[in-house]
């Protein structure tokens, strides 16, 4: 018995969906990747990615959603694959073969993006004309009866092609604002014909598809459907919770074998999957659905279940049957095997930073903060399946044990180099360790620091903490490669910046000093916002942010910034926009704004504009500089810099 089976007996027990037997309760949940060709054909990159997911040890692997109509009305992402014609079957078969090779069950998802689709054509379709809240998307055209019947038929044909492509089960996506959910929700469905009206009418499109597919595939083929258990659109006239539950029961009656429970739409004004949502906080929905359905129907859920203990507890209590992991497995496809082998600390932890979603919405390929090898699984130099050993081992000295330094050190050591990392302070992790003091789930950042530390230690990296490196030492060093990863600190060259009332945001967030009651934060980036949020949670302060531009945080992920801004507003944080500080005095800050000069009073001035620390780089020629020490940026850049440099060492 492996350690993981002992610790999580329910997660690693075999499960069943309809007649399909699955080796464990872990399912890689479907996500778009934008890796495929623009015309719907599967690319090599996608196959390599899906193979990596299957090789990781999950019982079921779901492909990304495939659009079902030949015109591209259902295509919501530029690199989405298609199942609208038989000519796509050979490519899809490559995916199912790759998944089967590693003993997992292959599931294909059918997805018509509806109101958020039609990316390459000049219109989108939906049940009724309801304007979009997110500016990226366009208003839909109302579907006629013929359109609806054609769409149902296309879904059924898609399910037939799914069998022909060798998949073990078919999944239908009816979540977050895609076509099925558009029909189900009272917010987007204003029809008065048989596909609208009461909840039975609104669900008719969905039940017609499920029963149509059931008729096509026969009684034994598993059908999974993803539906919202709570749309979180009550403010815009969405379905009530009882109605959503009713829809789920109708789906079961129509022939679905497994209900994948989700929460929220893209348009919901509530945090659903970000860090400020506690892990496991949506499990009550799964429980509610589980209680409402027949025992033979399986219930699965994704949504902030990053650690195995949450699904384990829920499965043991009979509230859930399958653990769906999407972002945790984008970050580390080997998650199931690592849990099984008792190496949980070695899992690359997802930070819920949502850079993956931000990239998809910009028509870019999927990208990950913590795993730069994403999308490069088939390229040996990215080392997803282990880095090649070097033939001549070098002595490498890295200065700074922040994220960039540790990432570079870990890779270099794994390749067989002798690596030493020197760190000025006595703890590792640099800015990320300090940022983990922040509110709203930011303590999860320590997972990344601890993972990198462990990876370094396993690879044999030596750490020297509490050591301040001087330029002389670099000049005289015998190391073959020197890497400067000294990061960034907030500084200012304004007159009066050396005064007693001026402090660094890093010291404040680290809890080293307590600022006065009236505070001015100088900074336009995410760091300034983080400082303000930290202060709001840790005392009573009057805070003013002085920033360039209309809003602070142009570098912050769009799926976080609106949340942060509303939290700043709730905390009554004042902002001085389009402002450039001119002078700092004991009483406050003199700023120049678009409408003249202004004086902002303050007891404490917090500097929150980061500047690189790279004087050691100038000590000697031919050494490398990575991370914030080049340009202060976000955490994903630090990991990426460290990774790219590590690949080259």
């Amino acid at each position: 018995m492996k350690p993981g089976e002992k610790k999580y007996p329910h997660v690693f027990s075999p499960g069943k969906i309809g007649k399909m037997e699955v080796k464990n309760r872990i399912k890689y949940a479907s996500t778009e990747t934008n890796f495929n060709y623009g015309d719907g054909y599967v690319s090599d990159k996608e196959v390599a990615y899906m193979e990596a997911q299957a090789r990781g040890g999950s019982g079921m692997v779901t492909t990304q959603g495939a659009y079902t109509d030949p015109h591209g009305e259902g295509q919501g992402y530029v690199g989405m694959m298609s199942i609208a014609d038989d000519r796509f079957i050979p490519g899809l078969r490559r995916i199912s073969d790759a998944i089967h090779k590693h003993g997992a069950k292959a599931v294909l998802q059918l997805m018509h993006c509806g109101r958020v689709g039609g990316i390459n054509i000049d219109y989108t379709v939906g049940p009724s004309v309801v304007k979009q809240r997110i500016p990226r998307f366009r208003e839909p055209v109302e579907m006629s009866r013929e359109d609806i019947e054609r769409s149902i038929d296309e879904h059924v044909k898609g399910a037939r092609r799914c069998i022909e492509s060798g998949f073990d089960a078919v999944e239908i996506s009816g979540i977050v604002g895609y076509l099925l959910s558009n029909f189900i929700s009272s917010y987007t469905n204003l029809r008065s014909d048989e596909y609208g009206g009461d909840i039975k009418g609104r669900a008719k499109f969905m039940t017609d598809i499920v029963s149509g597919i059931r008729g096509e595939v026969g009684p034994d083929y598993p059908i999974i459907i993803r539906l919202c258990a709570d749309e979180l659109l009550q403010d815009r006239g969405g379905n009530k919770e009882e109605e959503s539950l009713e829809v789920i029961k109708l789906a079961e009656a129509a022939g679905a074998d497994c209900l994948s429970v989700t929460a929220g739409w893209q348009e919901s004004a509530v945090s659903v999957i970000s860090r400020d949502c506690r892990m496991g906080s949506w499990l009550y929905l799964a429980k509610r659905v589980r209680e409402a359905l027949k025992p033979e129907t399986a219930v699965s859920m994704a949504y902030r279940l990053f650690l195995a203990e949450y699904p384990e507890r829920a499965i043991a209590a009979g509230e859930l049957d399958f653990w769906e992991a999407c972002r945790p497995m984008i970050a580390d496809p080997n998650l199931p095997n690592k849990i099984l082998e008792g190496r949980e600390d070695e899992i690359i932890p997802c930070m819920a930073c949502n850079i993956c979603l931000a990239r998809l919405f910009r028509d870019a390929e999927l990208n990950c903060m913590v795993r730069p090898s994403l999308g490069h699984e088939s390229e040996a130099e990215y080392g997803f399946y282990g880095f090649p050993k070097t033939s001549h081992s070098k002595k490498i000295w890295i200065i700074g044990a922040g994220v960039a330094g540790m990432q570079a050190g870990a890779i270099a050591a794994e390749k067989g180099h002798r690596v030493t990392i020197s760190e000025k302070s006595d703890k590792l992790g640099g800015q990320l360790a300090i940022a983990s003091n922040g509110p709203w789930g930011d303590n999860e950042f320590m997972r990344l620091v601890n993972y990198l530390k462990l990876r370094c230690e396993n690879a044999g990296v030596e750490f020297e903490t509490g050591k301040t490196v001087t330029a002389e030492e670099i000049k005289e060093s015998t190391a073959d490669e020197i890497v400067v990863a000294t990061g960034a600190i907030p500084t200012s060259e304004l007159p009066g910046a050396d005064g007693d009332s001026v402090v660094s945001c890093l010291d404040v967030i680290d809890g080293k000093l307590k600022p006065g009651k009236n505070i001015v934060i100088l900074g336009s980036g995410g760091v300034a916002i983080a400082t303000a949020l930290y202060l709001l949670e840790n005392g009573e302060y009057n805070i003013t942010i002085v920033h360039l531009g209309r809003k602070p945080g142009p570098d912050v992920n769009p799926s976080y910034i609106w949340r942060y801004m509303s939290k700043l507003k709730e905390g009554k944080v004042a902002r001085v926009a389009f402002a450039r500080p001119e002078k700092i005095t004991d009483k406050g800050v003199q700023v120049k704004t678009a409408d003249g000069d202004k004086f902002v009073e303050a007891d404490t001035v917090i500097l929150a504009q980061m500047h690189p620390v790279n004087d050691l780089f100038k000590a000697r020629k031919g050494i490398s500089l990575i991370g914030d020490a080049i340009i202060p940026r976000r955490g994903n850049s630090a990991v990426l810099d460290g990774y790219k440099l590590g690949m080259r060492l």
Partner: protein
Amino acid sequence: MIPKVDVFKCDGCGICVKRCPPQVMGLVQNRAVILVDLCEECGICHEVCPIHAIHFRLPNQGVAAMHESYTVPRQATPNPGNWTVGVPLGRDGAGHYK
């Protein structure tokens, strides 16, 4: 994929340089350039370029039009093959229909 500047089109307006989130773009000979090692592949430069001189999605992602895995030939794409040319907006996934 790292975006690609079409130097024959670029007029050096510098909007991409201003909007690049990690600030890794600049002008050389009045043409936009990207420090590729530091590029985060976010695609904002492509999105903000007023004259579409930055390509972010190559035709067929730089792979030849005929794919070995397919028994059926791929349909003709507007600009197959030569990935140094980039792809026009519209079909084949150059981005949102504008």
